[in-house]
């Protein structure tokens, strides 16, 4: 058993714990904070079912972004959908036997890796080429793209250029899930890939990646437009009525 095996075992336990605890903390924080006023961006749905449908369109199709800027939409949507398929494809490393639908999407997940990379490259190019976006970009915006692109590149590299022993990788992760350490193949590409993924998990709850849970709590998108029909009042605001 190599030192690297122990290192990555500990890293993934730590990264998973930070991701889960961090996200639970942030989501609880979003959920706990009151929204004292109804501020949906109108025209807005008037019912909860309508809100669910609006949120679905935002999350699955990026509707507002589509209306806003087709370039960002195309690159962003390509990246996110690619990422989704790639993540789904990776479920085969964590399930035994592999679920049927995961097995079925394997060929698509492969192309998704390229779509993901292309989307990221397009988004990154905009940070250099478009003056307005260059102005608002911080070093962390660039690093986040570098991180994701690094994950995509090392993943594709292992698939097409420098193969690694994926059966051993799978037994390593299945082992982690049973709290047993199994040997991780010695492979520099794999080490970089896994280290970057762990880093992504760690920064998720403390970075702009919070847009993922954030959208579900965004009052301009998740509130129904019914202020005349129902009295909407936050606890801290209701106290004022008695005064």
């Amino acid at each position, binding site marked *: 058993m190599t030192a690297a095996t122990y290192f990555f075992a500990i890293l993934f336990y730590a990264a998973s714990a930070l991701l889960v605890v961090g996200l639970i903390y942030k989501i609880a924080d979003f959920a706990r904070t*009151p929204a004292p*006023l109804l*501020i949906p961006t*109108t025209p807005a749905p008037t019912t909860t079912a309508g809100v669910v449908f609006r949120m679905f369109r935002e999350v699955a199709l990026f509707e507002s972004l589509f209306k806003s800027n087709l370039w*960002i939409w195309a690159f962003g949507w390509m990246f996110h959908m690619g990422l989704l398929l790639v993540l789904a494809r990776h479920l085969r490393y964590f399930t035994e036997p592999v679920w049927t639908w995961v097995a079925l999407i394997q060929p698509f997940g492969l192309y998704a890796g390229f779509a993901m990379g292309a989307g990221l490259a397009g988004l990154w190019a905009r940070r250099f080429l478009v003056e307005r976006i260059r102005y*608002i970009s*911080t070093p962390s915006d660039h690093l986040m793209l570098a991180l994701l692109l690094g994950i995509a590149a090392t993943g594709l590299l292992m698939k097409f250029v420098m193969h690694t022993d994926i059966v051993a990788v799978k037994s390593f992760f299945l082992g982690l899930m049973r709290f047993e350490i199994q040997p991780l193949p010695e492979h520099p590409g794999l080490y970089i890939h896994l280290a970057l993924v762990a880093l992504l998990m760690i920064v998720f709850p403390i970075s702009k990646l919070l*847009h993922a849970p954030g*959208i579900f709590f965004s009052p301009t998108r998740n509130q129904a437009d019914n202020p005349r029909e129902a*009295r909407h009042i936050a606890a801290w605001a209701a106290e004022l009525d008695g005064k």
Partner: protein
Amino acid sequence: MAGPEIKAPAFREFPTIPALQPGSMAGSKSYVANEKIQEALGFPGKLDDDWQVTHDKAIAKMGDLLGKYRGLKVFMDSCVHCGACTDKCHYFIGTGDPKNMPVARQDLMRSVYRRYFTLPGKFFPSLVGAKDLTKEVLDDWYTYYWQCSECRRCSLFCPYGIDTAEVTMAGREILDHVGYGQKYSNEIIGKVHRIGNNLGLPGPALENTLEGLEEDVKEETGVDVKYPLDVHGAEVLLVTPSADFFAEPHIESLIGYGKVFHAAGISWTLSTKASEAGNFGMFIGNYDQMRKIALRIREAALELGVKRIVVGECGHAWRAAYAFWNTLTGIGAGGNDPFAIELQKQLDPNYKQPAHICEVTWDLIQQGRLKFDKSLNDHRIITFHDSCNVARASRMGDLPGGQFDIPRNIIKAVANHYVEMEASTIREKTFCCGGGGGVLTDELIDLRVKGALPRMEALKQIADHDGVNFMATICAICKAQFTKVLPYYGFNMRLVGGVHQLVSTAIKLGDEK
């Protein structure tokens, strides 16, 4: 700074996005409120001499707001700097100042949020663009949070629905709490509390104005249309922006409201106490002020015993009324607490509470209770400017989008010539007039003129092509702003007017001799 050097930007041949001109609007700063104005609202009179005290107060207030407003917290955390909003703000389009891009305006606060409220900002500030709160940063807040009209156009286009208006409101709220308020808005709020309306018209002046109005209408039409004030037991309480009482073209719409009620035989009244629909508490993001200002309407409604509450042509007032009154004052329906029930049992459940005057007029038209001679508007070729707060923060009627269709339906019912402006500048995509959200003050005229550019371009197109000579709108601020800036773009200032001005022209009062 207002003077001959203020010029309108040239119309763009194509609506290209301007190149960045950093700092181009850094000198456009609205006047700071003096101690008297500040203290009347319970805010500190001025910045503390010790910067550390101001700094600590500002950060504490920010923490307070982050705990009270989910929107602010989510918006601070969620932005990914995608850039979708960067070309959506009329002030950016008109000025090219990068700090007028919505994301950059938000980042003035987000950079401070990251520094004080997030781990990466505490440990790696330069990596994530986090900044200490310094006097320079606070000055930037003041300058650029008072260059936002809270129109929410950016929120429409943000993939996470981040609403810069909410950030601007929070910024202004923090500024007020460290003694750095804006003269224009805070002085007006003081007037509402002291006198009852934004323009400071006392009761007797109001009475005189309304009597004069009755005489004018009688002279013009031969009909005794009443403009009643403080009538107990009237069915409708009309709450309208105080500009309607004397400003041009606003007063033409007030005349129109009266004619509608007269023709439909609905008893109505204005109120001295509630002689202002506007609510500048919203502009400064202060819940208490917004609530106090709104409570005047509740009190007036209870005192006068009215059955319905109707709001006149005013954009942000309609947002406050439609979206916030039920929360703030119980004016609405569905309340199950004693405070709300006290008022709601008095109001007639057969009507929407509050209702927009356009909803009232359109209902009456549909019921066939109003008759018009459309040809009386034939000298006008009309377009409609959607006001931002009506378009993106409220509704009319039962269906989403009613706020666009109902005013247009009214115009088409009372006039023969209607032309729509370019599709990307109307309905929810409408451009702000350039004067909303608390910037309708003379020292910001440069900003106001430049911010009107996208709307003026769309108007120019149909003025040249279709001969449009009347832009109807349902907002007191839009009317005042356009009256002022239209001449800068070579238009007649009288090109703007109200929807009920058109109604007023064409309506048959039923009892003409």
